[in-house]
């Protein structure tokens, strides 16, 4: 289990170093998008309009924050369940998306695309939403304002803490971890 401090955008070099189980601190820009925005991004691609931002090497964070208090950059901002974005993700990876932050299982199609193009899936700690919001230093609207809280934003982050769940080889910490610790609760208690 290695610790990395990385800055965006994700290069092949950075991605190559990340293994399932590693702890990572991300600094730089990440994009936010949930279900409705993902649908619009795919529609933009299919209509030939193109994406509203350059996705190459970028990270998308699946989040729907609580409202910001006056003076704050953002409200509490923990991850939402990634699986809901699975139908749209392989296409975005094909377009250049290289990192995703969320929580929960991903589909086989997503993992296949990650292996084919070399992308990484990170987990942020679900429910550590106030802690995570402290690492977000700026927020800028990018697209789909009409979606309100579900619009695409670019967040500036400093040492945003995540764990590599699925690396570019398809090693999956949800599977590895469970296997490693199955049966260990009774053992540990003696």
């Amino acid at each position, binding site marked *: 289990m290695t610790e990395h401090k990385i800055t965006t955008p994700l290069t092949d070099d950075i991605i190559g170093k990340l293994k399932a189980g590693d702890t990572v601190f991300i600094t730089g820009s990440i994009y936010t998008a949930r279900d409705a925005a993902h649908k619009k991004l795919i529609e933009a691609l299919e209509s030939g309009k193109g994406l509203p931002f350059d996705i190459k090497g970028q990270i998308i964070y699946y989040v729907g924050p*609580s*409202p910001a208090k006056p003076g704050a950059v953002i409200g509490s901002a923990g991850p939402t369940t990634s699986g809901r974005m699975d139908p749209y993700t392989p296409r975005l990876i094909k377009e250049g998306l290289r990192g995703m932050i969320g929580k929960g299982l991903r589909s086989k199609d997503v993992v296949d695309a990650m292996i084919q193009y070399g992308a990484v899936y990170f987990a942020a700690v679900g429910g550590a939403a106030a802690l995570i919001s402290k690492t977000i230093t700026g927020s800028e609207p990018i697209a789909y304002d009409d979606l309100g809280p579900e619009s695409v934003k670019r967040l500036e982050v400093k040492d945003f803490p995540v764990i590599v769940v699925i690396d570019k080889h398809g090693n999956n*910490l949800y599977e590895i971890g469970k296997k490693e610790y199955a049966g260990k609760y009774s053992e540990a208690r003696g």
Partner: protein
Amino acid sequence: MRTIKSEEITQKVRKLCMDAAYDLSPDVENALKKAMDREISPTGKEILRQILENAKISRNEQVPICQDTGFSVFFVDIGDQVMVDGNINDAINKGVSQAYVDGYLRKSILKDPIRGGNTGDNTPAICYYDFVPGDKIKIVTLPKGGGSENMSGIKMGRPADGAEGIINFVVQKVSEAGPNPCPPIVVGVGIGGTFERCALNAKKALLRSLDEPNPDPFYADMEKTILEKINNSGIGPQGLGGTMTCLGVNIIAFPRHIASFPAAINIECHAHRHKEVII
């Protein structure tokens, strides 16, 4: 007869909702600290450390523990010597509306389940009322996030399935849920009753403090068995592997029909927000 003003209920509910969102309950914090000490997975330990640090930040700064500030659920015990000058349901809903706007909580409720339309203030609240002796009103709130709620389930079993059938059902549901409900989880189990009462009891079971054992030793034992099986799954904090998958299992048993054997599981995340006020 004692009269309670509906405005007092509104104000107390407003504060209750905000407290529940910002302030991790002591029994949960204790359980998480114990879990962090016991966890043998380094990743799992670090996750629990982040969760506890998060609780300090949210409490100090009065911001939500989790951005999903949940569906506002209430269990209300109304004393038989109490009258409310107005509609208690309206009073509670008004309190929720004010809390979610004034308290910078996330409004996560859509008016129509299929056609959508955010209600703008997290109403309607879901309220369950009971009538008890006395001259007080006790209001307990359990704001319930979507992630854990989605992993819950019910089985209309057969009496022949027995306790073992229920244990297997509960453990199986938790196993299938994996990382999705944000482990470490709390598990509420309802056994018996009708279809809907069984499910309600599974949620009500979550109200019992993690510090308190089941008053019935038979079910206390069953809770321990289920907890052990779940923690031996290896799912761990956030499903990333470990021994602390579950902080506690609470069972509510209820009389059943001779031909029925329902069991329900309501999975709850590690925020496990629950607060009460007595008026």
